[in-house]
């Protein structure tokens, strides 16, 4: 790849940048080392625990825009009157998500598409609007990663507002991708320099395991395919995969509190749960785990691209890492690709 021009952010400038962001009222999430593991956490200052060479966290940052539990509104009511108190949307936090890998940054696309589909979800969209994504190219990967198979590259800046790539010296090559990115840059111009370099050379090489569009075609008419059952035998139907996934959006609406006061809450749910689709009558359209596994795959790789024009998988491999019984998604997708197409 050719050499290009980048802004340069020196390693030493990071503390100052973080201080500025914090001072401007932003909440910063960054990948923080904790023993063997690295997980996203809120930080107010730059520290050496912030890991810019992690492979992947267990949990994504989905929760910053689609919290695992979100209060929609409070209500109060008595015998004759009821009132609803919405949250103050203007008080929603201004988040800077620091150091997400391209898969995670890209994951906001399907979230956005879902929460915008015909009906705008004010909660999500407000949070998203207040969020600045600082992406980080991947210098490492593991066998679970398969971003290249879902048309994302370890260096792609799609979904990020600012894109960082760490160079040999440990400094960052910076791309300003969006206006929001520009704002951050403008806020701390003095910390940035200029450099020209070839960022591709610092990036890990993730092998491509399958072709996304081929897969999409293969899935057409696969509804009755026998492989769903074969693949899902071991699946124990927990929600681990969906809960770590940066793009899964299934949720539940619940009331909490008593009749006179309380709140309505939106909280994560998973299509893998047996009672997810259970009718009150006892009938369950997705009664078996294989039907639910099929829903998971088809939703991401067939229904979403069809209905909202975006795939529901970013190749981060989280679900495969988290699954207690090794339901490795890319392995299964490859197997589906290998199936003779049933015409």
């Amino acid at each position, binding site marked *: 790849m050719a050499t290009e021009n980048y802004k340069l952010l020196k390693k030493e400038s990071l503390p100052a940048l973080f201080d500025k962001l914090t001072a401007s009222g932003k909440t910063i999430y960054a990948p923080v080392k904790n023993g063997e593991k690295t997980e996203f956490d809120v930080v107010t200052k730059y520290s050496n625990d912030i890991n810019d060479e992690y492979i992947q966290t267990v949990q994504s940052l989905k929760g910053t825009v689609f919290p695992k539990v979100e209060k929609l509104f409070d209500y109060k009511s*008595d*015998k004759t009157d009821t009132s609803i108190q919405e949250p103050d949307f203007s008080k929603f936090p201004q988040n800077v998500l620091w150091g997400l890998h391209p898969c995670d940054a890209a994951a906001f696309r399907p979230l956005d598409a879902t929460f915008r589909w015909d009906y705008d979800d004010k909660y999500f969209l407000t949070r998203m609007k207040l969020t600045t994504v600082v992406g980080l190219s991947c210098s490492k990967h593991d066998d679970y990663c398969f971003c290249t198979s879902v048309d994302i590259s370890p260096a792609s800046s799609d979904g990020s507002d600012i894109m960082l790539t760490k160079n040999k010296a440990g400094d960052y090559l910076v791309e300003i991708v969006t206006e929001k990115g520009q704002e951050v840059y403008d806020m701390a111009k003095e910390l940035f320099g200029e450099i020209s370099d070839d960022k591709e050379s610092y990036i890990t090489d993730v092998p491509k395991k399958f072709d996304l569009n081929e897969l999409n075609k293969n899935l057409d008419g696969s509804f009755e395919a026998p492989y769903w059952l074969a693949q899902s035998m071991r699946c124990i139907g927990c929600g681990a995969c969906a809960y770590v996934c940066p793009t899964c959006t299934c949720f539940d609406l619940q009331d909490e509190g*008593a*009749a*006179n006061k309380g709140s309505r809450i939106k909280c994560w749910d998973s299509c893998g749960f047996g009672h997810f689709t259970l009718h009150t*009558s*006892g*009938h369950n359209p997705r009664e078996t785990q294989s039907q639910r596994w099929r829903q998971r795959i088809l939703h991401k790789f067939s229904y979403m691209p069809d209905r909202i024009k975006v795939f529901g998988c970013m190749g981060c491999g989280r679900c495969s890492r988290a699954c207690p019984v090794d339901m490795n998604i890319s392995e299964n997708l490859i197997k589906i690709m290998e199936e003779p197409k049933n015409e």
Partner: protein
Amino acid sequence: MARIGVFVCHCGENISATVDCGKVAQVTSDIPGVVVSVDYKYMCSDPGQTMIKEYIEKEKLTGVVVAACSPRMHEPTFRRACGEAGLNPFLCEMANVREHCSWVHDKNDVTTDKAIDIVRTLVEKVKRNEPLMPIKVPVTKTALVIGGGVAGIQSALDIANCGHKVIMVEKEPSIGGHMSQLSETFPTLDCSQCILTPRMVEVAQHPNITLYTYAEVESLDGFIGNFKVKIRKKAKSLDEKLCTGCGLCCTKCPVKNIPSEFDQGLSNRRAIYVPFPQAVPNKPVIDKEHCTYYIKGKCKVCEIVCPTKAIRFDQEDEIIEVEVGALVLATGFDIKRANFFPEYGYGKYKDVIDGLQFERIASASGPTLGEIRRPSDGQIPKKIVFLACAGSRDPAKGIEYCSKICCMYTAKHAILYKHKVHDGTAYIFYMDIRAAGKNYDEFTRRAIEEDGAKYIRGRVSRIYERDGKLIVVGADTLMNAKTVEIEADMVVLATAGVASPGAEELAQKLHVSYDQHKFFAEAHPKLRPVETNTAGIFLAGACQNVKDIPESVAQASGAAVKVCGLFSNDELTRDPSVAVVNRTAPPLFSTCVGCFLCQSVCPYQAIEKEEIKSRDGKILKTIAFVNPSVCQGCGTCVALCRSKSIDILGYTHKQVYAEVDALLNTL
């Protein structure tokens, strides 16, 4: 749609003195679902009740909360009133603002607020109450009495005389139990058999009593009012209809050396035998274990001699099934025997005997025809030592309880001995003399004072033989634990009374509880001493605990009254507050997963298995089922069930949850 009426009672001034009843009514009228809330001086008075009834009709109330005294006081009153107004009585609840509020707190706002909270809680509960119907179960008016000792006999006769059918099952060839073995009885010293035999005959002849001797209960199913019992009639090898009881067979049987159970091994019987002359029924049975024909395949002497050809060698055990509405357990007790007292040489020395053996020796119908002669050589013992508490109250032997009868019968034995052997000396080792009972203490004093029994307070450590004498070594605790040694001709051990041998097994068959000593457990030690935990099964006599005859008979009559009380109804009406296992739409059918952990917590064995079957009879699921006729509504199962599959009517999850919520929500 909830339409609740709240009725706040002043109870004269009992409530209104500290609680602002008007305010309670006013505030509670704002609770959603409350359509009327009023206060009144005396709710339980006629006008008060009429007011409630009128509101029920006028306001079409779906629930009533009476804020007044304790429900333990007036719940029936107000529920009846509601019922009369056409509201299901179980849709009425009481808020206890008197005992739990006005009487225990001072007059102030806090007290009024508490009253309001109590009402609110009950309003939320009653909103979730369901109309309940009292449970009705038909009653089969036949009783089964198990055990034909004096207790069983008494119960059977009492019940039969009330006009109900009774089936009696006795495992021995004759009824009579231990009492028939006794010589004379304390404290009156009347002849045991003389008073018992007529009653035994009455049992046999009573038109309402069906007697099965040589029979045992095989299994029990069902529940109060509706038991199904399988009875095993052991083969007697005899056609009882043909047998006239002439006894010829028993005299001709060549097997002569079987120790007689009735005489406690002090005499012998034949292989075909009647246990004792007054036996009821007075017909023999063949003891298959000892009969030569059954052992070797030949003999048949009895068959040959029988004038009516009543012997049936090919007879087999027969299982009959009967339906009964109640059971009386009267299987009695037993006493500890050989092996249990190696230190006393019991079983080793022929002249160390137990109390029952002494009874036989003292009995006019016994092996010695009532003369006190010792087993070894038939000599009349001149010095005789009685040991009370042989095994009883002895934790080391595992029997920490008092056998209750020994003190008395030992005194009796001493008296009987002195009456028969005037020059003899009776020594009695005892721990304490327990003689509580009408004329009991007088009786023991008589033994000491009139009949000169020598009471020594202390334990016997050892008995051994020396020169044909039994040396009894003990300590006299009243004499500074001085060692006492007595050269006795005979020793009688008042061995501990214990549960009858098959008690545990029987209890398990019948699902009644039993204590650690295998005596059957009463439902409540004070208030329900003749009932078991299993509704419809009652206790009589020594099977519950060792007792003497008067106590056994009294309890037996008590049990009979319980049975007759039960039988005085064609149907049983039970509190509908029972547990139910939920049912849901298929394919789940119920959230119960059939772990049956609930089964073992239920104190009443009310939980059964229910199979849910498809149309073609395939078992789809096995779930728990609570038999509403048996469940007493304690709810112990409810709190155990993890998946919340059992609920208890009247105290449902929804109800109690709402109560907790309401009580705290606005506090």
